[in-house]
């Protein structure tokens, strides 16, 4: 009897949390974030960041084409990952004590699910939609934002995850570390992009350190939050459909199949 009541209470709490999270996701507040807005970077600096962005996005598009040619069953995973990156990277989170807001990046999670090159493409698409319709980021600064959020977030997250798994660290902690360091690396790259373009006659590394220190009160706790979220989602996917992870980089190799029963 007591057990049943406890079980019911637990269900109510979970429902309330899900409802609160849903409200937060749909609550219409403008996103304040790390994206570099239109006009902040001088034109030539903005153009330079397009070069690595184009290379990595190009490789990612090639990989998507190759994988979708092999099996259409990867499409739901791409859809889920793209939507997750879009939502996570426009989700403003107020940080207690600091009194400021920022957002996680989502690309470390994306890289664990679909690989770093494809995650870079999905991050680039999310950034383009945000720049075009959500007054968030910019077209001229799209290349710089791709490099910091999509490219660095994906590759640092993926690299940390693979390294930790090789060291036999439990999957939650490996994904936690990936989310944490991927998030911080994104903001460090944004700081470098700003400092390299704006330091003028001053010290590049002095300005970089000043911007990183200014980001720190907001981004240190948000990195931990992103780590917890990434760890939770990856653990859940691993428990329910481990083959989704082995498809990308081989956590273990059970029956490899994706949605629709199609073998990969």
């Amino acid at each position, binding site marked *: 009897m007591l057990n049943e009541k406890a079980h019911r209470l637990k269900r109510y709490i979970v429902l309330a949390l899900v409802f609160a999270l849903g409200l937060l*996701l*749909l609550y*219409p*507040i*403008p*996103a*304040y*974030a*790390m994206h*570099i*807005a*239109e006009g*902040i970077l001088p034109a030539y600096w903005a153009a330079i960041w397009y070069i690595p962005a184009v290379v990595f996005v190009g490789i990612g598009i090639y990989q998507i084409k190759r994988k979708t040619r092999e099996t259409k069953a990867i499409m*739901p995973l791409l*859809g*889920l990952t*793209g*939507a*997750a990156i*879009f*939502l996570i990277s*426009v989700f*403003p989170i*107020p940080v207690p*004590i*600091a*009194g*400021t*807001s*920022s957002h996680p990046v989502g690309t470390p999670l994306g890289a664990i699910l679909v690989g770093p090159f494809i995650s870079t493409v999905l991050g680039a698409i999310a950034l383009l*939609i945000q*720049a075009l*319709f*959500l*007054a968030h980021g*910019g077209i001229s600064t799209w290349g710089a934002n791709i490099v910091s959020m999509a490219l660095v977030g994906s590759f640092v997250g993926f690299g940390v995850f693979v*390294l930790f798994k090789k060291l*036999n660290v439990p999957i939650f*902690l490996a994904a936690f*570390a990936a989310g*944490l360091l991927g998030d911080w690396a994104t903001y460090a790259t944004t700081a470098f992009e*700003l400092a390299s373009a*704006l*330091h*003028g006659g001053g010290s590049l590394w002095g*300005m970089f350190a*000043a*911007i990183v220190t*200014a980001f*720190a*009160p*907001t*981004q*240190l*706790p948000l990195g*931990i939050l992103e780590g917890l979220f990434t760890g939770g989602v990856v653990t859940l996917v691993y428990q329910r*459909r481990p083959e*989704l992870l082995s498809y990308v980089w081989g956590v273990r190799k059970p029956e490899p199949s994706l*949605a*629709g029963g199609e073998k990969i």
Partner: protein
Amino acid sequence: MRNLGKKVAIGSLMIVVSLAVIGWVFLARQASQGEEGPWGGVDVTVIEKYAADAGREAREPFINTDQGDLLLFVFVLGGAAGGFVAGYNWRRLISEKN
């Protein structure tokens, strides 16, 4: 040897997280809040502040949806569409085994 690597990785992670929490608490008072008051985003309080110091101002976006309630509308639309796509594909991947 493999266990040593695992212990070092987990230990380093714990140290980094502890330092991050301490850093957050100590640096929080220094967080600049900008003209818009508390809970301002770091794009304004950090990026635009340093850009303004260097003589760069943010331009209006090419498609400026930041007018009246239009931005709220596109955010709800984007959130709802993104949530639908994520939920639909999550169900296909996780719930539908066949």
